[in-house]
């Protein structure tokens, strides 16, 4: 997993609530057997019209938001399908952080598996950040160690994050490797399971 400690860059406002994972990466891009290259499908139906032409009004198509590294989005971001293609597509596009007033559970987990930081702030704080992001050409900063988002105006917002998740993000730890340290306990659990619930072990 990619480490995340600090991020500086432009942020794009996406005020819609309930942006679901099918909007983030539509189904036709899920037929891949790879993790890479999904950025081309990111927000496809928002970015392109039925003829495949860019829609100039969509925020990520505007020159002022070129090279965007963060999104500031409406409530319940990432709801819907469990597809991890959603964080993969965001990261492939260059987005490393999404700020919202809430995230759907599975999407939130998937972000932490990949080094994409979901930041939860209060709705009025999110609205204030969106207002500052209007017009683009700004630099926002996210610092994980101190748990702060700093807007171009200098206004800083503190966010909460689970300590275990923070540590893993900062260090870029491999969850499977960490769990395999406990392989002895897994063996013992399985042994007990075999004795007491024989029918469940085919």
């Amino acid at each position: 997993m990619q480490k995340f400690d600090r991020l500086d860059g432009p942020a794009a406002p996406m005020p819609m609530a309930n942006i679901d994972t099918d909007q983030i990466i539509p189904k036709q891009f899920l037929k891949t057997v790879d993790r890479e290259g999904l950025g081309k499908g990111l927000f496809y139906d928002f970015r392109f019209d039925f003829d495949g032409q860019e829609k100039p009004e969509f925020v990520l198509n505007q020159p002022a938001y070129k090279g965007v590294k963060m999104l500031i989005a409406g409530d319940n971001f990432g709801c819907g399908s469990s597809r991890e293609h959603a964080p993969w597509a965001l990261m492939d596009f260059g987005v490393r952080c999404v700020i919202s007033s809430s995230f759907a559970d599975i999407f939130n987990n998937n972000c932490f598996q990949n080094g994409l930081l979901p930041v939860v702030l209060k709705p009025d704080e999110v609205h204030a950040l969106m207002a500052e992001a209007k017009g683009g050409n700004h630099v926002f900063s996210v610092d994980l160690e101190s748990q702060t988002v700093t807007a171009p105006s200098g206004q800083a917002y503190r966010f909460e994050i689970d300590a275990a998740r923070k540590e893993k993000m900062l260090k870029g730890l491999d969850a499977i490797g960490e769990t395999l340290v406990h392989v002895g306990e897994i063996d013992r659990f399985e042994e007990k399971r075999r004795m007491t619930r024989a029918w469940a072990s085919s």
Partner: protein
Amino acid sequence: MGKTLYDKIWDAHVVATEPNGETILYIDLHLIHEVTSPQAFAGLRTNHRPLRRPDLTLAVADHNIPTEGQALGVDAVADEEARIQLQTLARNVKDAGIEFFPMGDIRNGIVHVVGPEQGRTQPGMTIVCGDSHTSTHGAFGALAHGIGTSEVEHVFATQTLRQEKAKNMRVTFVGTPVPGVGAKDFALAMIGRIGTGGGTGHVIEYAGPAIEALTMEGRMTLCNLSIEGGAKAGIIAPDETTFAYIQGKPGAPKGAAWDMAVDYWRSFFSDPDTRFDREITIDVGKLDPTVTWGTSPEDAMPVTGLVPDPDSFATEDKRASAHRALEYMGLTAGQPIAEATVQRVFIGSCTNSRIEDLRQAAEVVKAATAKGLKVAEGVRAMVVPGSGLVKEEAEAEGLDKLFLAAGFEWREPGCSMCLGMNPDKLSNGERCASTSNRNFEGRQGRGGRTHLMSPAMAAAAAFAGRIADVREFL
């Protein structure tokens, strides 16, 4: 203080607890499919890690398979990317020694139909799958939820997941539903009430007399939709109905093991002195058949009602979403929802493609056919059974002939137009009465307009050519 059903399953699966509070939880059953597994298998290979318990893993091909011509085999699938993905799954499961029901096998079907049908889904288990509707299996008193592909790889390598415990919520359903109202209406009404984020961070236990009266298939429909209320999982305490459903299924314990298993399963219920973090009660006696009007499952309303006015919503965000939803759906505030004409009807998906769902739709077909009705002109109606076995059972009951004679298409099993990854999808602007679970923008095809409802309601819409109150037909 007592424990909830969720607490008990959790406690029975703790392998280790990390100093930072994370728990390593054992997984009893891992279901996989073609779309969310290839990168996980690739990850194992890259890191030279073996798959720990192939015997606790079961694979199906469901998301992108066509719903006709399955007997021709995977090599005949026209979509090249889909074909490669299906071939990749076949190769991966063979290498790892995982049991697999390939496309065309009578046991294949939608992953959340197959697990229960094969008796692999059992009470007290932890069950995961790289698919958000894994919550379906909670109907059996199992802790079941969707995971992402990195977590699929984690389960492959360790047969565990790193988890933080969710909160406990209980929704108690009381009352007796009127004819035409069932589990799908319970679920939509609940999500309409709590909102799509209402269950976030919680495992929801469904309880009460109206739940005890539900069949297993109704319970699965309800638990399936838990995720649309934002919940981590939905769960129902196992009872005689549950045990009777499992008994005799291929994966069910046999002989003396059956009695031991049932004894163990009976220990999974919420203690009477338990406190839930959140509780609500819903009187199902007050529900009308329910449909959605917008682009979120929380946009639920009685079929007898009028499309709401976006300006009537409480917050600015909600007002903006509602305006956008109405425009997308091509509806006007204040119009009766039952006036909306449909061009498509879809009966299927892991929410509503089991035999009872098909029977409920068939009841409406019988009643309408007796009145001399056919699927309305200009409407294309599809029935997609959830698995090969469901299809076989329905055909043995003559349901296929009934549907076909009335003008429905009778297709082969798969996810189909639930997500429109295969050739079954809506065209821009088409309106669909659908028994699936998501009415998001573009879910069933770009520009497609989805109205969620029960199988009986969807069948009624096929005959009426518009959203219709099923009670007109009963």
